[in-house]
């Protein structure tokens, strides 16, 4: 499968220019006040207002995009920026677009234009921002689901929470389409979870896989070399296998995905910021949800339950995980109507650290 893209042409040596300088593309007020901002507030959902030490002010209007954008969508966004903005934009960590303008007067028309073109304005402060997500069936070679589809379904459901700021704090959701988890940790994370050991296509192993490398990749030493039908192949100890899929990328004949066995799990309480509590990993809430395109209704239902339980119960500034820390996991499971099972008990390395070594108990 090795090909080279340069066959016919005379080679052009690359200019190793690296990370482009952003200053040529930066709003003049941002350039001018670079490193000298004083404070900010949010006049309404989707709008930031930053004031510089110089007294300069800048308004930012944030709108949701689908991340995977056709050139028409991008050009439309540019049109809006040219007509109602000042031609300077940025994309955020979460693929939202931001328009910077020097006058508040420009904000309403900008919002109107974005809304009319179908781009929701919001995602700031204590809202649900765009879900950060991954490639899925659209492009990846190992996906268990289609991240973009899951995200579209969920963002439709949560659209009101994107355009309003009514959550206790920001909600940062992620999805990942395989257990490698290119998506990040999230207040809520919707991730593929395999449920069966890989099915091995023994005919292909010898040709495709570097067997010692594959054996070394397994976190629980469940793989051993074996002769199958007279050919060198691999065998999996299904008692040991935790169905993690780590063997699949280096050895595609170890098919970890199955139309029915690839499931979806939902996790909560991941946090990156250091505000108040330290950064945290997300924790398992539900596993074994069906991978049900095109709209993943079962996933949507669980996310909705979690989101609205948090909205109802969280105190201002509490992130989702901090809300649970206060009210306790028993009440979280009660209020979301979800089940607590043996699978919630950690069994991975260092499991003991996640146990309750105290009488701090929530009744």
């Amino acid at each position, binding site marked *: *499968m090795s090909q*080279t*893209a340069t066959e016919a042409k005379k*080679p052009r040596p*690359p200019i190793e*220019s*690296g990370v*482009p300088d*952003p200053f040529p*593309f*930066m709003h003049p007020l941002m350039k001018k006040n670079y*490193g000298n901002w004083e*404070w*900010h507030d949010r006049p309404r959902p*989707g709008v930031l207002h930053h004031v510089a030490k110089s007294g300069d002010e800048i308004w*930012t209007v944030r709108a*949701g*995009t689908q991340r*995977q*954008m056709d*050139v*028409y969508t991008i*050009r439309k966004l*540019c049109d809006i920026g040219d007509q109602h903005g000042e031609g*300077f*934009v*940025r*994309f*955020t*960590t979460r693929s939202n677009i931001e328009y*910077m303008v020097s006058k508040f007067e420009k904000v309403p028309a900008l919002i109107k234009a974005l*809304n009319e073109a*179908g781009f*929701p304005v919001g995602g700031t402060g204590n809202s649900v921002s765009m879900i950060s*997500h991954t490639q899925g*069936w659209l*492009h*990846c*070679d190992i*996906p268990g689901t*289609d991240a*973009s*589809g899951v995200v*579209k379904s969920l963002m*439709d459901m949560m*659209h009101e929470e994107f355009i309003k700021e009514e959550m206790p704090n920001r909600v940062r959701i992620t999805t990942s389409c395989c257990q490698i*988890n*290119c998506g*990040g940790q999230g207040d809520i994370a919707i991730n593929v979870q395999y449920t069966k050991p890989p099915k091995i296509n023994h005919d292909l192993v010898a040709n495709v896989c570097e067997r010692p*490398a594959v054996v070394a*990749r397994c*976190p629980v030493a469940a793989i051993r070399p074996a002769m199958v039908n007279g050919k060198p192949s691999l065998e999996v100890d299904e008692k040991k296998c935790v169905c993690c899929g*780590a063997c699949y990328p280096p050895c595609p004949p170890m098919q970890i*995905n199955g139309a029915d066995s690839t499931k979806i799990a939902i996790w909560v309480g991941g946090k990156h910021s*250091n505000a*108040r*509590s330290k950064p945290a990993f997300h924790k398992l809430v539900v596993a074994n949800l069906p991978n049900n395109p*095109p*709209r993943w209704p079962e996933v949507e239902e669980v996310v909705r339950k979690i989101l609205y339980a948090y909205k109802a119960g969280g*105190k201002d500034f509490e992130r989702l995980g901090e809300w649970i820390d206060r009210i306790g996991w028993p009440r979280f499971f009660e209020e979301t109507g979800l089940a607590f099972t043996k699978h919630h008990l950690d069994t991975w390395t260092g499991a003991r650290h996640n146990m309750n070594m105290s009488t701090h108990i929530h009744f």
Partner: protein
Amino acid sequence: MANSDFSAKSWADFVIGMSADGGGATGEGGTNRHATPMLDELESGPWPSFITGLKRLRDSKGKQYAPMMNDLLGQLEHSYENRLGYWKGGTVSVFGYGGGVIPRFSEVADKFPASKEFHTLRVQPPAGYHYTTDLLRQMCDLWEEHGSGLIAFHGQSGDIMFQGATTENVQKAFDALNEMGFDLGGAGPALRTSMSCVGHARCEMSNYDEIKAHREVINEFLDEMHRPALPYKFKFKFSGCPNDCVNAIHRADFAVIGTWRDDMKVDQEEVKAYVARQGRKYTIDHVIAMCPTRALSLNDDNTLEVDNKACVRCMHCLNVMTKALSPGDDKGASILIGGKRSLKVGDLMGTVVIPFMSLKTDEDYDKLKAFARTVLEFFADNALEHERVGETIDRIGLPTFLEAIGVDPDPNMVRHPRTSCYVRTDDFTEEAEKYFERKLHKDKVKGPVAAE
């Protein structure tokens, strides 16, 4: 609320006006369009629909990519039906580089031949993601010519993902982008594309020049990015403060996160204004009681007492009272090493290796680069194949790692000192002597990356 009406509509209603052709019903794929009943369902609802976008490309009259996008949609529908993916990898690169392209060959090319090759160019964006509309339009034009018309802003590592080039077009697209001043990002066992938050450009919390740090560090090691030869991937991420808007702690091997060493700034009049607005009880319950180290106390006259020695720079009170509180002047960054996601060992977070590095002068940034080099070289020389640096540290232990990179132990590296007595300590006294000597000479001698 202006936005509320909007939510009733579905995104497909907004399509008009976005297509270059003024209407999408009759693209090149026209009569041969694959039926996509499942994907069609992703066009309803208020959120922008990537399917609607893909269809616009499919339906673009006369565009070279229209047939490709028709087959792409066909293959995607096929995936939705069977709940399985149909791409496989391979090797595609541009002249002079070993990485930066994610090659995709279809496993169902017989059914969907036009999208049999659908490679992605990972392209590094301007640091901090700043664009002019003009720049974006240039990129669109370029990608209409050499690619599929499908671009993601951005991938999770920060690249602009130009998705959907044929093998033949990869080099062309790269050449054009490269001429525009853009370069490929990372893929494979290499230095990866980096991210930095908006920071200095528009944020009062920022503690160092994220753009400078991002560009100087990454551009120092471009060879490691373009010619993959590391044991495994290595990622830098730059956040201007502990809010960590680019998720560096979890998702970077080397996280540079801004902070400050001196006292925070307090405008007591603004504090009083805040308390007057929100009430005492609210302020106590939401600011005072939420401080992780009880460093705050509300005085009876509604001014704030801050114990800056106890404050751990978590940002909470500054985030809440943006007018009243701000970072100090002695700014710089903490460096955490070893973050990654799940593969093989489960998720790891970065742990503090440099509690504070001043980032004010050019010399400071040189020190940052020097330290980055030290760690990268350590990684190149010591990590096992397919081992991230966090795994290496876990394998050899933090003391050994620190020794290897020439950093002295510091109590800020730990949540707390060891609780296990199982360690051989016969050289404890000599180690303690070293500490006292360091303390003595602290102000005189400054190592290049000593935890200052």
